[in-house]
């Protein structure tokens, strides 16, 4: 049975139904108005819960049984334990043993440690994943092996889908570095501290059932609580929720690659010479090696000019903490802590404020943090001649990354994408992105080691760096240089079958990923 497809506003062919659920094609940036009311989970009553507040049950299995785990349910998890997560796989191991089938796994992101869930996709325990897919999981999906269709959403799109009832979470299993028996939980303390657990907030509020899993049961009240016990059904205490050294990097490291340092230096120089880096600036940079180097260079400029950033938005790293502690940044608002310095800072520094992704990224709310940011540093696997960006697939067509907060962050005033012109012979700047994740109208500047391309829509930026000596070129020139060096790549080949849908921040479908043609 063929699924009906249409061409959306971005010119991409997308289905009108995904996993049996109707889907709205992308209509353009800011062109889709939602209707109706927010989703509500069932009304609970205190009479179902122990008066002494002690919700601890003996095991995760018991908690899952008490939550009524059954075929077809949607199970959500968060990714704050990153590659050290020991619980997500365990859920499906238990479900498989219980003979439960066709679950939907709804993680806020997946990591290499989650590769074993492939076993539970194979044995039918899991029907599909709605969340990010990396490495072997991405490959599995791209080769058409997953039963259902994957749905990829940004961090903000995920909470939007939860809030709007597009995804109804049956059971949220939320790991917490510290929790009390009532279910209050936070990201600090214990041996698995990850700093903040803001990604779990929406899940706790909107899921029908909520299980908190901790390896550090503290006396009531677990304070300051990021997850409130009033939303929690059961608390499970285990020996270990995570592998500490894989939860946060001991230290995140600035890139040592001279080529990446060059890109970082050029980026900092662009920010300064264009005038977007200024006193009172608001800035967000990621945790990749190049972004960290940019943070270091930006810090230098702020110091030199005696400027202060009004606030920075995390994921936080020690380089951002340095700005905060040395007085070049007034506040850090933070959705996740990437290294030990960041975890320590969020525990101690009152100006380092946990900030749920709900408030930062959810497009269906009364304003977002991202549109208040002056400078947004992002990455991409591909950028095309129209400045459209791809972050989920590579040019060979394989699904390899999640969207993360990328789409949400595109709403910042100045979106800057520092990328190498090519990676191991694969050009980053291409005629047309393999998968469209972000419309070019929101992407302002591409900075490569061989030149800077400014979106023609940003006449102001183009003017601001005239005569600055910066190597400004057209995106076409950069693409041609990449092809001159690498050779023109042939196109990846796909089957008709759709293996994944890419949602835009408003829940509409901006593109799909098709099955790789092999042989």
């Amino acid at each position, binding site marked *: 049975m063929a699924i009906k497809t249409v061409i959306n506003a971005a010119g991409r062919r997308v289905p009108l139904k995904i996993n049996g659920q109707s889907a709205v094609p992308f209509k353009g940036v800011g062109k889709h108005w939602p209707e109706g009311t927010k989703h509500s989970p069932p009304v609970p009553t205190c009479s179902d819960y122990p008066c002494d507040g002690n919700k601890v049950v003996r095991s995760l299995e018991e908690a899952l049984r008490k939550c009524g785990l059954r075929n077809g349910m949607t199970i959500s998890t968060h990714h704050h334990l990153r590659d050290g997560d020991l619980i997500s796989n365990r859920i499906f191991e238990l479900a498989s043993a219980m003979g439960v089938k066709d679950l939907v796994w709804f993680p806020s992101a997946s990591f290499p440690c989650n590769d074993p869930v492939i076993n539970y996709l194979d044995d039918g325990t899991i029907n599909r994943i709605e969340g990010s897919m990396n490495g072997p999981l991405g490959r599995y999906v791209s080769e058409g092996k997953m039963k259902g269709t994957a749905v990829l959403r940004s961090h903000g799109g995920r909470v939007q889908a939860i809030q709007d009832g597009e995804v109804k979470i049956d059971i949220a299993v939320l790991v917490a570095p510290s929790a009390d028996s009532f279910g209050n939980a936070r990201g600090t303390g214990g041996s698995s501290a990850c700093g903040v657990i803001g990604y779990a907030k929406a899940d706790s509020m909107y899921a029908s059932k909520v299980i908190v899993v901790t390896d550090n049961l503290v006396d009531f009240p677990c304070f300051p609580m990021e997850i409130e016990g009033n939303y929690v059904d059961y608390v499970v205490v285990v020996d270990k929720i995570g592998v500490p050294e894989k939860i946060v990097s001991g230290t995140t490291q600035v890139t040592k690659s001279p080529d990446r340092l060059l890109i970082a230096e050029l980026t900092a120089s662009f920010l300064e010479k264009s005038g977007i880096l200024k006193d009172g600036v608001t800035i967000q940079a990621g945790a990749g090696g190049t972004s960290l180097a940019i943070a270091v260079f930006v810090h230098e400029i702020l110091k030199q000019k005696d400027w202060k950033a009004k606030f920075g938005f995390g994921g936080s790293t020690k380089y951002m903490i340095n700005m905060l502690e040395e007085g070049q940044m007034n506040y850090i608002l933070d959705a996740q802590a990437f290294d030990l310095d960041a975890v320590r800072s969020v525990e101690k520094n009152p100006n380092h404020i946990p900030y749920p992704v709900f408030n930062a990224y959810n497009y269906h709310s009364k304003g977002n943090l991202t549109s208040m940011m002056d400078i947004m540093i992002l990455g991409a696997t591909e950028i095309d001649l129209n400045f459209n960006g791809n972050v989920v697939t590579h040019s060979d067509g394989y699904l390899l990354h999640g969207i993360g907060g990328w789409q949400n962050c595109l709403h910042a005033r100045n979106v800057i994408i520092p990328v190498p012109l090519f990676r191991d012979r694969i050009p980053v700047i291409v005629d047309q992105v393999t998968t469209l994740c972000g419309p070019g109208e929101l992407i302002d500047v591409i900075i490569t080691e061989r030149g800077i391309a400014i979106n023609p829509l940003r006449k102001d930026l183009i003017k601001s760096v005239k005569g600055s000596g910066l190597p400004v070129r057209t995106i076409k020139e950069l693409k041609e240089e990449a092809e001159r060096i690498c*050779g023109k790549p042939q196109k990846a080949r796909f089957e008709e079958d759709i293996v994944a849908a890419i949602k835009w921040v408003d829940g509409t479908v901006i593109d799909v990923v098709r099955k790789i043609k092999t042989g």
Partner: protein
Amino acid sequence: MKRRIAAAGSAGPKVRSDCEITLELKSKGGIVFDLTSKVEALYGRSIKELCYEILKSFDIRNADVRINDSGALAFVIAARLEAAIKKLINSDLEYLPEFIKENRYSTTAGRFRFSRLYLPGNTPGLMINAGLHSADAIILDLEDSVSPEKKDEARILVRNALRQVNFYGAERMVRINQGDRGLIDLHFVIPHNVNLILVPKCENHDQIKIIDSEISAIRKKERIRNTVFLMPIIESALGIENSFDIAKASENVVALAIGLEDYTADLGVPRTREGMESLYARTRLVVAAKAAGIQPIDSVFSDVSEMEALKQYVLASRALGFEGMGCIHPRQISVINEGFAPDAQEIEKAKRIVCAFEDATRNGLGVVALGSKMIDPPVVKRAQKTIELAVKLGKLPLQMNK
């Protein structure tokens, strides 16, 4: 029996932008490819087409070609296949990739050579972006950084790199091997617009003369107009003793460089950070070069993580009279470039001296004074040199020079 199978290039988990090609000649069956590549979906077809064309140009019709590729660019793949072919058949044929027009520049004897970035001649991954780091020169090294069994394939790779890699205006240098091997190296590189040849372990002026005449023979044969300069590297006690002679061996010698690792080994003493053991050699070389009217160039600084120590080294080196040094990592380039250039204070002082001199000349005064201080003619000359340097470096507007 004649060899039927040979390999060239590198593969392995840490190798990037290179490939290993194993070629087995067959008597029938046509060309059979076995390609493993992470870019197969994007370049599989073009890799095979390229290899097919190269094999055809060497008249090879039947062969098994195993390619283990980690994102090698076409010029690298071509070099690897040609090297494998030449291990199996005797041929003077060359498969030359296009010579990109950006690489058609020449240089001058007196240009700055503050920083020269060494690139191992058999490591393509380091070549591709090398020109981006603002070194005055790029050295494609065929000598010490290439292991003996890889020497032949490195020549072909370096040749292709000279044709295909844009070094963005950096002076294009090649360090050849010693002795006869070095003379053969010249035939692989001189026809492809090399600006300067580094001559390692140079001990007497005959070595330079032989190389110089070999180069002019090649230039004549290939009708090359651009001059090829020479930079002998002095790396022994004997070389130091003969340094002035070496500097004067040919008008194409534009600089003398010192190699301290080998020099200290020759003396049988360890190389220290303070460098007292080589002070004589370094100052002697500076004097020889200056006497010959060419640039004295210092040895490389081998600890790439010690940026502050490098900075101190550069300042000391410049104080001795050196006008540049080698870099073994792109990170060293900016420190070295800044270190050898005059700083703002020096330029300001030189400006005042030159202005005072010009005032004095205009007013017909024989004596130049700055405030209450008399300025000797050599001081004026040095100030003029500083101004000249500052103008060339873009640290002063052109009018200052007048």
